[in-house]
């Protein structure tokens, strides 16, 4: 089978730093400190999403109301990517554009949960009480703001991207595999154009609970990712979303769209995380990705102990002297969005001449490894 080169013709990024490539490139260059909110969920930290004018990408207020923050962030970033790729006005092509989204689930109604948990303690019949309160207190449409595939559904509704959508779930690896499978389908001729990306809202008590259950959160005063593992390790969640318009190079050329960069095939894997597994996996993926000697490196390292140290050590061996930029130091840990956001930022950096190619490493806090290679389009 002849494989077709896959190019990126548009990106959309939203994070705690702002929207679009500029604020993220400034941070990449070390000119902008991270934005951290240490108050709202103290002692837990988050990188909060920048305030956005939703109307610019989600014109209907009724649509905005039917979404929770994770969906609005994703729909906004998807719109930026469509704009950048020149697709905004091309309804016909958007109707043929496929979607691969990496996502978890949506926000809960925290007040309702709290009231129910309070009432359950004294309820004579807890089962009946739970039923009664859920039946009367849950907003019917909240379900649709929680369903994993409804980020894709909202992108279809708001932006008219209706080729077909698939939603991958599974934390960091879902984002890597979204890019992997999008690239592979286009390269093999199974699709011509795919909007791929992810969204994550960190400013959620239920997300903090989930990560705190496993002891994965950094609770001390802010410290850069690499400094955390020796002190017990931990990640700081960040709100963010990123989407990329991926196209067959010939498809982009035929519609006169500029190729911003090339996305190479994305190797990913899964190890049991035994001793030495992470390092061996990263070496293999690095080689499969064909990372060049002059590649700049963007690491999605979380700050969680062991895996972060193993990743940084492996990068040190694979690219001696390289100084990887840690995405977590810029925007926090954006979970499913690590790979898409890293790739989108790499596109911007290559486009602006920061490097001829970039390697983005994604090692999940718990599982899943991947390397994304983005290079200058020829």
């Amino acid at each position: 089978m002849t494989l077709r080169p896959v190019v990126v013709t548009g990106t959309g990024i939203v994070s705690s730093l702002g929207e679009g490539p500029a604020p993220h490139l400034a941070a990449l260059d070390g000119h902008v400190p991270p934005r951290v909110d240490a108050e709202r969920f103290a002692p837990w930290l988050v990188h909060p999403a920048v305030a956005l004018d939703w109307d610019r990408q989600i014109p209907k207020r009724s649509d905005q109301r039917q979404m929770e923050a994770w969906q609005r962030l994703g729909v906004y970033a998807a719109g930026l990517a469509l704009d950048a790729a020149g697709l905004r006005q091309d309804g016909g092509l958007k109707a043929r554009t496929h979607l691969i989204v990496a996502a978890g689930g949506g926000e809960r109604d925290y007040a309702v949960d709290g009231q129910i948990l309070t009432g359950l303690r004294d309820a004579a019949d807890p089962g009946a009480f739970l039923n009664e309160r859920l039946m009367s207190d849950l907003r019917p449409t909240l379900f649709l703001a929680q369903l994993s595939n409804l980020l894709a559904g909202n992108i279809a509704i708001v932006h008219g991207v209706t080729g077909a959508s698939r939603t991958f779930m599974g934390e960091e690896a879902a984002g890597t595999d979204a890019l992997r499978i999008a690239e592979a389908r286009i390269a093999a001729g199974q699709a011509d154009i795919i909007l791929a990306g992810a969204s994550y809202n960190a400013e959620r008590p239920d997300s903090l609970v989930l990560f705190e259950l496993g002891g994965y959160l950094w609770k001390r005063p802010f410290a850069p990712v690499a400094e955390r593992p020796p002190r017990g390790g931990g990640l700081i969640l960040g709100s963010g979303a990123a989407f990329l318009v991926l196209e067959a190079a010939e498809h982009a050329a035929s519609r006169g769209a500029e190729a911003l960069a090339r996305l190479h095939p994305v190797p990913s894997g899964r190890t049991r995380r035994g001793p030495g597994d992470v390092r061996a996996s990263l070496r293999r993926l690095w080689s499969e990705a064909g990372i060049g000697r002059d590649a700049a490196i963007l690491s999605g390292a979380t700050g969680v102990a062991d895996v972060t140290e193993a990743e940084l050590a492996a990068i040190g061996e694979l690219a001696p002297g390289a100084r990887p930029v840690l995405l977590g130091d810029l925007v926090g840990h954006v979970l499913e969005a690590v790979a898409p956001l890293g790739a989108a930022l790499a596109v911007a950096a290559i486009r602006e001449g920061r490097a001829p190619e970039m390697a983005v490493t994604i090692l999940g806090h718990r599982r899943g490894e991947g390397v994304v290679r983005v290079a200058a389009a020829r």
Partner: protein
Amino acid sequence: MTTTRDRDARGRPLVAVTGLGIVTSLGQGKAANWAGLTAGRSGIHAITRFPTAGLRTRIAGTVDFVAAEPFCAPTLGERLATLAAEEAVEQAAIGRPGDFPGPLFVAVPPVEVDWPQRRALAEAASGGVTYADLLAAAATGRFRDWHDLFSFGTAADRIADRFGTIGSPVSLSTACSSGATAIQLGVEAIRRGEADAVLSIGTDGSVNPESLIRFSLLSALSTQNDPPEGAAKPFSKNRDGFVMGEGAAALVLENAEAARARGARILAFVLGCGEKGDGFHRTRSSPDGAPIVAAIREAIADAGLSPDDIDYVNAHGTGTPENDRMEALGCSAVLGERMRGVPISSNKSMIGHTLTAAGAVEAVISCMTIANGRLPPTINYRVPDPAIPLDVVANEARDASVRFVLSNSFGFGGQNTCLVMAREPRRATTSTSPPGTRGRRRPTSPDSFRPPIRTADSAPMRWTSPTARPSTISPSGWRTRAHTGSSTARASPTTRSPPPCRRSGRRPPCR
């Protein structure tokens, strides 16, 4: 060097099914499910797992005979998936135990902390409970396992571990078409040449109070609780919603050439996949049904077939007013007048809507339908809907030779995924297809509908329950016996005018 025998008309590798596994409320395994489905038995019953006081819907097709620890949606879903995959991998006799030679695609329901766990976290709180209390409890480190338990990627990770699949396992959701998407992803990987074998699974064990209430609040569920087995009434005029079900299904898919090379028995082929998004509404289909039509058309075209080739439709058939009407419209638009004589039935009438698993469950049942030459019925079909004048295989199973099945899956969020499965791929006219299966065109009148004449070449294999008529187990693990059923189809119970299928006002938003 691949022979043209194992390539489709576009030169892509043919995708063979070599292993099937299934668990539903009817039982565990193909034999139990096939016996139940063809007997028209319902697995839907009153919910006993949790109190149903105050609920509008108190029934479901829960799987109550499988244990999971701690009992919650993610562990039950993982357990069901594992059981289905064990059956499929054993039948395929592929790889070695714990060493499956290909990737994993698994459709899993969305995961979140469940109420029993939330309550446990709230136990230490004093006064009004807030998430700060839950966070404080989480920080004690006493509930460390729950991070994995309620992470989205855990079920796939554990299944990958158990079966030794290759690479990063993909967990996915396309809502109620998820199971079909897991198969589609597998088909694509084989067609790309990335893998010679894949394990595709759909699973759902999420009948719990909040899940049920969420669907209930969207008016998606049947509220006809008594009798439970009568509630799911797809295509009937008095249908009033779906019934939640649980289950899992797994398919081992292989590059047909690789399967033959290792001497595997090919059970069926996945010939085509079609999908189309719908941006009309979060829960409702475009009124003109165009996305459903496009997905069906694409699946048939991808299979290298024409609409006239479809012998039988395994319907999405949820039993909601909206879904069944739109599905009938979509099928009729693509298959034309002929659709009135093409049998269509809904497994959900018996097992309920297994949601994330449904597309995979129904694909497995479609393969069994092909192999056995018998169509599972749509039960509870007592009041035909004049707006849906289709042959719904009313109430009783029917023998019919089936070459090409269309299996539909539609979901919230504008998800439409259709699969075409086959006994054999369509051969060129000079091929070695069994007599009676070569480029046939069905007559269009329902009254003249006749199944193809069965020949020795196409004698079906059957699954039977252990208590059914004598059977033998073939070396591949398939139970086989001589075909004894009638080969004459009954006339359609509904032979009225074609469906008007115009949207009539607002309906409960359910698909």
